[in-house]
């Protein structure tokens, strides 16, 4: 019979591993707003690198309409809208729009994911901007092509740490 008794060390290791597993997973699920679950603090170039690797990003000025105020009185509430002029058919559509703020400690503000049922790759919301700087919109097409535009926004009162 290949049966053998477990040593004390094996039992302790197994118990400790089970304890770690059961204690760790629920905590990770609850504490979703911790810094570890936010995008890392990094310069915008690093965010672009992390999101898109070395894929080429073309100038999207002819396709993307990014609207932002030239001067934002309150950085905590800056109206933004972005629209990509593209058909939204199952064969060709905009998969996602990424909005990044160069001067925010965590530059990725949001990722907006679309489907052909969206009809239009359009989204409007309000951003928090930490400081005067560029805001970028990167559109990802369903074939993986990337297009980008930027606008500079002058922020009068910062949106604080964001």
């Amino acid at each position, binding site marked *: 019979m290949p049966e053998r008794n477990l040593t004390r060390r094996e039992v302790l290791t197994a118990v400790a591993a089970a304890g770690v597993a059961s204690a760790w997973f629920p905590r990770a699920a*609850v*504490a*979703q*707003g*911790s*810094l*570890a*679950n*936010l*995008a890392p*603090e990094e310069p915008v170039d690093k965010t672009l690198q992390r999101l898109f690797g070395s894929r080429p990003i073309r100038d999207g000025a002819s396709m993307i309409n990014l609207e932002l105020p030239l001067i934002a009185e309150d950085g*905590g*509430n*800056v109206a933004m*809208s972005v629209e990509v002029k593209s058909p*939204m058919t199952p064969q060709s559509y905009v998969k996602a729009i990424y909005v990044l*703020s160069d001067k*925010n*400690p*965590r530059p*990725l*503000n*949001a*990722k*907006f*994911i*679309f*489907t*052909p*049922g*969206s*009809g*239009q790759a*359009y*989204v*409007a*919301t*309000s*951003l*928090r901007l930490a400081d005067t700087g560029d805001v970028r919109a990167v559109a990802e097409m369903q074939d993986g092509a990337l297009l980008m535009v930027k606008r500079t926004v002058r922020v009068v009162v910062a*949106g*604080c*740490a*964001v």
Partner: protein
Amino acid sequence: MSALGEVKIRVPASVARGSIARARALVIHPNERVERKDGKSVDRNYRFVNRVVVSYAGRDVAEFDTSTSIGENPSFGFAFRANEAGTLKVTFFDTHGGRFEGAAEVKVG
């Protein structure tokens, strides 16, 4: 004063069949921002909206992954294709397990 989690959706009174309509959804929510102390971010469980799902007539049309960089009481304008009359549903999820849903009927004619 509105209560946390209240969702408001604005849709056009009626839209033409097959056309593209725009709507706007808002949730009353603090969407907490990251605190800083001595130049370092304070690590705690911030409460902010991190996911928004838009569905129309039972099908998901868009999804937004959001962060603390969206303003307080997050609002989103978006588009959808109205091939048939149906319910536009917007669900906001936050990092404290909150789930806030709003719905509006869309008339197609």
